[in-house]
């Protein structure tokens, strides 16, 4: 802090000693005495005598106990002052600075430059003056006072302001300049300011006095100038260094949860660090570089304050660089200052005065720079991980022999030792089971069996996928934290809870997002991880990965089809920040763009009432927001016209340009920078897709292969389906390791090549296009390459629909062979069969029916395929449909039957014959039932009819009914139930009783039989309890049905509900499900509550009975 400086060799006191009393001087210096030299201004005013000199030479007492002057007076040194007894009073004389002198023999001696003579009283005025000069101005006001508080100071300020004004306007243009240009411009400005200040005569006079005054003046001018221009200037600097800052922020945020001990900092510093952190966080409040440097200095002095309550071992807490650097790293990470690079350069390059404590500041800056460099290098991350595993190892070493299996397990997970983890997780039950086998009886407690049980290594079984460590982490957390993607799969297989949260509410997904492991993020999403779950401070996984700047993870979250609908773009954490706030604060431009493209809102305010735009650190980002804000219409317009261009006006390239131009032209300032951002990745991709689809339309197979980046040899060499390849050779379908990604040529993330399942805006995929173009070869190719067969466009159109409507039987057949769902509906409810009938293509109809297409399925206006076939008067199709059981009297929603659509006598005849045939044989009550259900009023009679129809023993009927019962929206129908329970009713009670007996009779469950195993993938099970009337014997029978069938019946069920207000079907549902709850996978409702619901509708008591009876009938029938 010494401000005062002079060359002691020029001091009259010193020269007097050296020249006039050289003998004394030599003697004193060879004895290494300390010389006290009064400062120049004092010394020159006095005549110096030998006594004076002798009073100013301090020698050490022989025993080292104290100091004495040459003349024998006792002297102490305290608080940087020399204390002497003068006129029986203790007087303190301040030491201005000390210097180590070397005489000609290289013998050193100390020289203290002191404020005034030790043996003469100090003049009062002098004392005060010195004091004020010692302290440096603390606030901006003080600096200003220093500059302008003299006669004519106001005028000086005005001229200075006038000079600075144009500059601060100019800064906007600076942002795009090179950094060095900004520095030079500002430096020139500083010189100009100095010139104009020095024109002031009174200032000049003051400065002439000493170099020190000049330094102070320089600092003051710098302070004043920088404070007035910093807003603009710092903006420019920030904008200039935006990319670097974003990079640093990314590394910093990834480490944001670092702990002191991970950096090897002693806990004793904790208190000081807290204070220092508080100070450091104010850094951005200071305008000038000098202000910020002073702030930095205060941080350091906070750090080096002696720590209290340490048993006098202060020495051990000396702040050394070994600790200073890690502490700075820690502080920088924790300070949450988003513009470190800009700050660093600002302090370094714009500190023009370079006068005050320059060396010290440079050291602090260097340390900051080193700390940032270290954070940036990423070695810290590795270190942190290493130290963690080290700690674990140590822990396990400590308990050496009895290493806890839990610790070992976690360290295996951490290290990614798949075999070991598998071993520890694998079949945790076996030991127990094997022991039980050795026992006389599972429940035996003889001494032999007891010892067996005792030996059971229970510890081993302690490790499961649910085990947690001291942070509340499960193994899955640790795998996510350390990027062990291959373990995620394994752990989840072993039952790990995907959404388990630790003490801080982090799920594995949070951790993976924070650390930026895209592959794990994808895997976890694949396993239905909850993407919206907030942690304890309200951060969703999206917050986490935006915060740490992991663009790939952000994209993974946003684009993973599954979550797209449920992820909340605008979720706010406890500070009210949305992901967009965070991205804006840390300056991640590409993430902002991604978020904006996904319709993140830019007008949400956080707790500090800041919008994302307000927290932006640099002009680039603010510009992005403004652009987005000012023209949301144009932006969406762009997207629309783009899609139009891509799919409808492919041949005309012009609209593209036209639509983009307004975006770039409208902002007043030319935004060259912005254009590439607008022309984002999507555009390139869309363009590629357009090209691909064009090639498909033209049937140009080689070109298609080229676009897809498939080798020509591909299809021949690998006739086996790529799905198989994927399953066998990939670590996991979603794995992203180098080996796998090369296998997955068109993986989700690779933006260069197109995926075979790539979709355009309307979700048309190559396979759709190929079907549309009726190119069987391409269809085969795509399917071979792993294209999904059951993909929908936005309108629900599948490739099969397209093939059907194009009457291309071969493609229809090929698609069906590869698992295309035959009863799939588009947005109008049409199945492929409807479309084939519409086209009157008998071959396709044959194919579809061969693959179990539903004949009587109705579309959204209630038309069955027969309606359509009759409309188009396609006789062979009608014949086929009727032969397959189409019901000629089916009514559509307008109440028309197929009859109403034709006047052709032949067709009417055809239909007629079928009606009579059917009615006579009465073998098709299915349709009848359907019809009845739709039309029947709510009389018990009609219901009875329905159930009577079951006596036809048709399994199909049963299925229809059961599925329709199952599909009833329970909640909705419950609301409609007006009656209150009456539990007193004896009938009900008896029913309940019998039901509950049946429910808990588990023996019945063992006899489940699956009737239909043909389509195991789409199976869901329904069960009917085959109880006889007296319910003495219970047997269970399960029915399986294709899920498509369920869909078909669904509508009908709805109509049942409407028409009959049917608590009965509700009841039926409960009835069915409650009878065999363990068989019905969907039913999670406890049986009791189900029964209680039954009771709610007392009035339907009879009907319930009837149902039971009917069921009984059915049972006997089906038997």
């Amino acid at each position, binding site marked *: 802090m010494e401000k005062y400086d002079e060359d002691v060799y020029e001091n009259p006191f010193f020269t007097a000693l050296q020249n006039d009393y050289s003998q004394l001087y030599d003697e004193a210096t060879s004895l290494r005495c300390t010389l006290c030299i009064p400062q120049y201004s004092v010394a020159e005013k006095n005549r110096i005598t030998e006594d004076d000199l002798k009073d100013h030479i301090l020698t050490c007492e022989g025993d080292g106990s104290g100091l004495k002057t040459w003349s024998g007076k006792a002297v102490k040194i305290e608080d940087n002052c020399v204390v002497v007894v003068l006129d029986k009073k203790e007087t303190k004389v301040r030491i201005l600075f000390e210097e180590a002198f070397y005489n000609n023999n290289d013998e050193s001696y100390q020289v203290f430059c002191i404020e005034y003579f030790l043996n003469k009283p100090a003049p009062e005025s002098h004392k005060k003056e010195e004091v004020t000069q010692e302290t440096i101005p603390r606030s901006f006001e003080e600096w200003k006072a220093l500059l302008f508080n003299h006669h004519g100071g106001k005028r000086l300020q005005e001229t200075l302001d006038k000079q600075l004004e144009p500059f601060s306007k100019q800064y906007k243009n600076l942002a795009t300049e090179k950094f060095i240009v900004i520095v030079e411009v500002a430096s020139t400005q500083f010189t100009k300011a100095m010139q104009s200040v020095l024109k002031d005569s009174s200032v000049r006079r003051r400065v002439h006095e000493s170099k020190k005054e000049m330094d102070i003046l320089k600092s003051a001018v710098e302070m004043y100038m920088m404070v007035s221009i910093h807003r603009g200037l710092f903006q420019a600097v920030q904008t200039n260094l935006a990319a670097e800052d974003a990079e640093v922020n990314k590394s910093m945020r990834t480490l944001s949860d670092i702990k002191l001990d991970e950096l090897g900092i002693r806990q004793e510093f904790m208190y000081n660090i807290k204070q220092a952190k508080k100070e450091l966080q104010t850094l951005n409040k200071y305008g000038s570089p000098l202000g910020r440097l002073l702030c930095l200095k205060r941080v350091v002095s906070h750090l080096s304050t002696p720590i209290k309550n340490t048993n006098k071992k202060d020495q051990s807490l000396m702040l050394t660089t070994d600790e200073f650097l890690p502490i700075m790293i820690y502080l920088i990470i924790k300070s949450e200052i988003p513009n470190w690079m800009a700050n660093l350069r600002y302090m370094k390059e714009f500190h023009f005065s370079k006068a005050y404590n320059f060396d010290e500041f440079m050291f602090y800056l260097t340390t900051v720079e080193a700390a940032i460099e*270290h954070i940036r290098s990423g070695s810290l991350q590795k270190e942190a991980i290493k130290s963690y595993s080290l700690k674990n190892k140590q822990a396990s070493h400590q308990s050496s022999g009895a290493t806890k299996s839990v610790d070992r397990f976690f360290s295996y997970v951490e290290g990614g030792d798949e075999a070991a983890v598998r071993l520890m997780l694998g079949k945790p039950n076996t030991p127990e089971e094997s022991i039980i086998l050795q026992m006389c009886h599972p429940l035996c407690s003889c001494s032999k069996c007891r010892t067996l049980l005792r030996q059971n290594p229970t510890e081993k079984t302690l490790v499961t996928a649910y085990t947690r460590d001291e942070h509340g982490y499960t193994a899955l957390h640790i795998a996510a934290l350390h990027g062990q993607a291959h373990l995620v799969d394994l752990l989840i297989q072993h039952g790990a809870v995907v959404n388990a949260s630790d003490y801080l509410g982090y799920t594995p997904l949070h951790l993976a997002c924070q650390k930026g492991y895209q592959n794990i993020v994808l895997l976890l999403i694949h396993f239905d991880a909850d993407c919206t779950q907030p942690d304890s401070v309200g951060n969703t996984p999206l917050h986490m990965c935006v915060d740490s700047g992991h663009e790939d993870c952000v994209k993974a979250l946003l684009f993973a089809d599954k979550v797209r609908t449920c992820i909340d773009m605008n979720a706010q954490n406890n500070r009210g920040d949305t992901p967009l706030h965070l991205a804006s604060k840390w300056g991640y431009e590409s993430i902002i763009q991604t978020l904006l493209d996904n319709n993140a809102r830019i007008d949400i305010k956080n707790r500090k009432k800041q919008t994302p735009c307000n927290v932006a650190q640099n002009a680039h980002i603010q510009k992005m927001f403004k652009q987005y804000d000012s023209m949301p219409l144009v932006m969406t317009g762009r997207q629309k016209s783009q899609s139009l261009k891509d799919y409808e006006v492919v041949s005309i390239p012009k609209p593209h340009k036209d639509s983009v131009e307004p975006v770039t032209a409208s902002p007043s300032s030319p935004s060259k920078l912005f254009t590439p951002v607008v022309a984002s990745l999507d555009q390139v991709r869309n363009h590629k897709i357009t090209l691909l689809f064009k090639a498909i339309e033209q049937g140009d197979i080689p070109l298609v292969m080229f676009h897809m980046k498939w080798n020509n040899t591909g299809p021949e060499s690998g006739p086996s389906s790529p799905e198989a390849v994927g399953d066998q050779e990939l670590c996991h379908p979603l794995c992203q390791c180098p080996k796998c990604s090369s296998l997955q040529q068109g993986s989700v993330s690779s933006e260069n090549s197109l995926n075979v399942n790539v979709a355009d805006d309307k979700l048309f995929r190559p396979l759709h296009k190929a079907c549309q173009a009726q190119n069987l070869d391409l269809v085969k190719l795509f399917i071979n390459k792993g294209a999904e067969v059951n993909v929908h466009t936005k309108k629900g159109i599948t490739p099969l629909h397209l093939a059907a409507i194009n009457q291309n039987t071969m493609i229809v057949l090929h698609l069906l062979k590869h698992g295309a769902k035959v009863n799939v509906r588009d947005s109008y409810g049409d199945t492929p069969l409807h479309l084939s009938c519409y086209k009157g293509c008998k071959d396709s109809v044959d194919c579809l029916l061969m693959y179990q297409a539903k004949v009587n399925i109705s579309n959204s206006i209630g038309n069955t395929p027969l309606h359509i076939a009759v409309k188009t008067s396609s006789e062979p199709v009608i014949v086929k449909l009727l032969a397959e059981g189409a019901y000629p009297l089916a009514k559509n929603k307008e109440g028309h039957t197929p009859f109403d659509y034709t006047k052709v006598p032949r067709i009417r005849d055809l239909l007629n014959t079928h009606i009579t045939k059917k009615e006579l044989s009465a073998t098709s009550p299915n349709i009848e039932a359907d019809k009845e259900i739709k039309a029947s009023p709510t009389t018990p009679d009609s219901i009875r009819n329905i159930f009577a129809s079951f006596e036809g023993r048709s399994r199909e009927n049963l299925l229809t009914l059961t599925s329709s019962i199952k599909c009833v929206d329970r909640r909705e129908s419950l609301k409609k139930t007006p009656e209150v329970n009456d539990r007193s009713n004896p009938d009900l009670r008896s029913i309940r009783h019998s039901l509950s007996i049946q429910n808990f009779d588990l023996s019945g469950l063992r006899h489940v039989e699956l009737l239909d195993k043909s389509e195991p993938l789409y199976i869901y099970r329904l069960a009917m309890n085959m109880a006889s009337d007296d319910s003495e014997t219970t047997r269970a029978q399960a029915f399986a049905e294709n899920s498509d069938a369920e869909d078909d019946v669904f509508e009908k069920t709805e109509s049942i509900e409407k028409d009959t207000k049917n608590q009965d079907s509700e009841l039926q549902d409960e009835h069915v499900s409650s009878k065999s709850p363990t068989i019905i996978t969907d039913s999670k409702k406890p049986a009791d509550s189900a029964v209680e619901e039954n009771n709610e509708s007392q009035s339907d008591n009879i009907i319930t009975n009837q149902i039971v009876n009917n069921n009984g009938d059915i049972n006997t029938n089906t038997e």
Partner: protein
Amino acid sequence: MADSGGRNFSFKCVLLGEGCVGKTSLVLRYVENKFNDKHITTLQASFLTKKLNIGGKRVNLSIWDTAGQERFHALGPIYYRDSNGAILVYDITDEDSFQKVKNWVKELRKMLGNDICLCIAGNKIDLEKERHVSVADAEAYAASVGAKHFHTSAKLNKGIEEMFLDLSKGMIEKAGQDNNRNQKDSTNRKSVVVVDDDPSAQQKTGCC
């Protein structure tokens, strides 16, 4: 910074060496003043200054301590750039620390050439019994790379003052040469002091 007829100098001097060789103790011992305890009030040993007056030539010496941990090795250049002198410290009881000094010397010579004055300090000579680095080896090596070698002990306060004095003189000389060559540039901010810390001498910073 040097002005008034080439009589004022301002030098930056860095201390390099493995952790635990006693860098910090060394510099604290040097800067400390047994009568004036002001340095003790600020417990900060990473940046210290000392004013010297060598036969009328005033030197403002800023001594930059560096972190000795291996993991921070890569940050070295940030610290030693623009320094006039380096003190490389090793621990005479630790062969490895001497090896480390050799690495530093190589690096410094590569990055800064001969612009920098080097001093090698074999620290902890109070532990002479446990010496593992032979005096002859160390001195021969120092001579081969154009550095002065000093035997120091922060504990006994031996050799430290001499070392800094010698280094300062070296830096002044170098500055003088530079001055002749480039009359304008009188600022000599290029001396790196390399201290070979003896690890055993480190005992807590400020072992006085």
